[in-house]
């Protein structure tokens, strides 16, 4: 208990004000919600700046503040690759290939798009995978924050912290849907940046500036000589060799994440114009490039300021820095920033998992059972019911799910299991007219199985934790399977793929017309 931080009354006032403000803003947004389109895609009225803010803050959770700082403490600045190499190139690609295409097709979810392009089986498998992963992420982020931050640092019982954040975020997501999620995200990003950059400034001040930080870390010995290198040799035993960073992260994981992750792309589905959808993605990428300054550099500063932690306690770097460095008032602000990061991630994940569940799983089940599609009002009611159900269930199951493995690696490993195969299927579906429904299905299912085999077969790669290589090779494998099975099966009729292949959508006006007809159906 000696390591816990006492909060000054002013810190508590800042945190409570922030929580109440979020609740009120979310509640205010309910007046814009009248049907399923309003709830799931904000009535397609979002401006680019709100989309950009929301993408960043939904992507960065309190887990990142803790775990990326921990990874930087242990492995150096190479941990920042996830927000540099792992963001901007993929976001540019997403902005000009996937986003306009999704936006024009008028879908609510990525699996829904896959269902139109391939078949219901691909839609169902993809939706099921995403629903499970989003639910696990929801539980993990809730428990990690409650346990690693609220309890370890503040001494607040973890179940109290978990239920308070779950109820606040659950309430405004329930009331305001995506509109509430996005506009609370805007406020949360500002709070997060002020808190995060404040911690960075004080950390650098304490260390004596950038040059002093550099010199002091390099003087610690041979184990620290790579701490200021973004790219490490292929045969490094750490998790971030350059080949993994460029191929696994830059080409596969990042593009899959930015183009196929419902939490990210759902904001662009809600854009008021195609330009806002693309501009929102680019603006989000620009804002995201500042994230390593807030999450990775304080981890480096912690090597000098709290050297006693050791690699095994690396995840305690940020809590320790808060305890050692921040005065009353700023501590409250920093915790408000961490709460902002947490709540935005929870609300975004919650809204997206509900959208997938109602649109893809429930919608498909009704179709199979021969029931009519959900009306817009029914969609809204079910969206709210499942929002409440998911947040309660994830809070109940948070501890058993999350209480295992090193936080960041766990989430990345779960994601990497199907990111490669999903990207392969999505990419071929968009750029290659000959890809067939069976090709896509085989590519997705066999790709995930191959990924599982690679992940569990030791010694194939030099890295101790080769999730970047697993992502890359499962992507390549799924591409090959999809191509081979597509050639072995009859081509899709022209009518089915008309308006659903990127080249025709971009160049051919009649294909545009076909797409608009599909939207109006």
């Amino acid at each position: 208990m000696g390591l816990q931080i006492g909060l000054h009354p002013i810190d508590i006032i800042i945190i409570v004000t922030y929580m109440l403000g979020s609740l009120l803003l979310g509640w205010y947004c309910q007046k814009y919600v009248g049907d399923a389109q309003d709830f799931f895609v904000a009535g397609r009225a979002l401006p680019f700046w709100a989309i950009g803010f929301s993408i960043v803050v939904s992507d960065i959770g309190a887990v990142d503040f803790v775990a990326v700082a921990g990874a930087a403490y242990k492995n150096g600045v190479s941990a920042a690759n996830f927000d540099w190499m792992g963001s901007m190139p993929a976001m540019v690609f997403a902005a000009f290939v996937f986003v306009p295409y999704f936006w024009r097709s008028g879908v609510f979810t990525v699996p829904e798009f896959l269902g139109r392009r391939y078949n219901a089986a691909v839609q169902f498998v993809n939706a099921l995978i995403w629903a499970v992963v989003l639910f696990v992420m929801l539980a993990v982020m809730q428990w990690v924050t409650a346990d690693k931050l609220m309890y370890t640092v503040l001494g607040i019982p973890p179940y109290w912290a978990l239920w308070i954040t779950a109820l606040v975020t659950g309430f405004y997501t329930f009331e305001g849907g995506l509109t509430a999620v996005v506009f609370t995200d805007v406020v949360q990003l500002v709070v997060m940046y002020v808190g995060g950059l404040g911690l960075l400034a004080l950390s650098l001040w304490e260390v004596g500036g950038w040059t002093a930080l550099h010199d002091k870390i390099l003087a610690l010995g041979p184990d620290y000589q790579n701490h200021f290198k973004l790219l490490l040799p292929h045969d490094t035993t750490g998790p971030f060799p350059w080949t993994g960073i460029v191929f696994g992260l830059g080409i596969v994981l990042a593009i899959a994440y930015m183009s196929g992750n419902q939490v990210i792309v759902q904001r662009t589905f809600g854009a008021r114009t195609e330009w806002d959808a693309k501009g929102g993605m680019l603006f989000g990428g620009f804002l995201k490039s500042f994230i390593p300054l807030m999450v990775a550099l304080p981890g480096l500063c912690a090597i000098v300021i709290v050297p006693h932690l050791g690699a095994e306690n690396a995840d305690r770097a940020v809590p320790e820095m808060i305890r050692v460095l921040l005065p009353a008032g700023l501590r409250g602000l920093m915790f408000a920033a961490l709460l902002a990061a947490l709540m935005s991630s929870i609300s975004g994940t919650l809204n997206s998992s509900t959208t997938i569940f109602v649109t893809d799983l429930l919608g498909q089940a009704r179709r199979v059972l021969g029931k009519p599609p959900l009306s817009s009002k029914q969609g809204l009611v079910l969206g709210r019911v499942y929002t409440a159900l998911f947040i309660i269930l994830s809070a109940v199951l948070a501890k058993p799910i999350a209480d295992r493995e090193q936080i960041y690696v766990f989430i990345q490993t779960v994601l990497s299991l199907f990111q490669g195969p999903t990207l392969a299927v999505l990419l071929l579906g968009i750029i290659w007219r000959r890809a067939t429904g069976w090709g896509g299905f085989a590519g997705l299912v066999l790709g995930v199985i191959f990924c599982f085999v690679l992940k569990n077969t030791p010694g194939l790669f030099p890295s101790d934790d080769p999730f970047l290589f697993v992502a890359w090779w499962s992507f390549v494998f799924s591409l090959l399977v999809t191509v081979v099975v597509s050639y072995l099966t009859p081509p899709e009729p022209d009518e089915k793929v008309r308006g659903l292949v990127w080249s025709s959508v971009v160049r051919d006006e009649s294909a545009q017309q076909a797409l608009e007809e599909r939207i109006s159906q």
Partner: protein
Amino acid sequence: MEKFFAEVFYPMLSPIFRPINAFLSSFFEPYASICAVGMFVLPMIWVGLLLNPRYVNRGQRYKSAWTDLRIWTVLSMIPHVVVYFYFR
């Protein structure tokens, strides 16, 4: 489970991945930095020069340099190029 996978799949997969690993291990700098910087420069060229400007800015409400997404792309990418040169 790892033991099972090691016995069943390792003998099949290691002849494929061992030579690939050996090949990649022989490359590091400057190729690593060139590849990394290329990940930023190529999208700049693609969006700035190769894509149709009408497609890039479709849906734009006010036409000006400030709302030209080609310029946004380039300006967002340049700091990353600097960062990857600095942390070599």
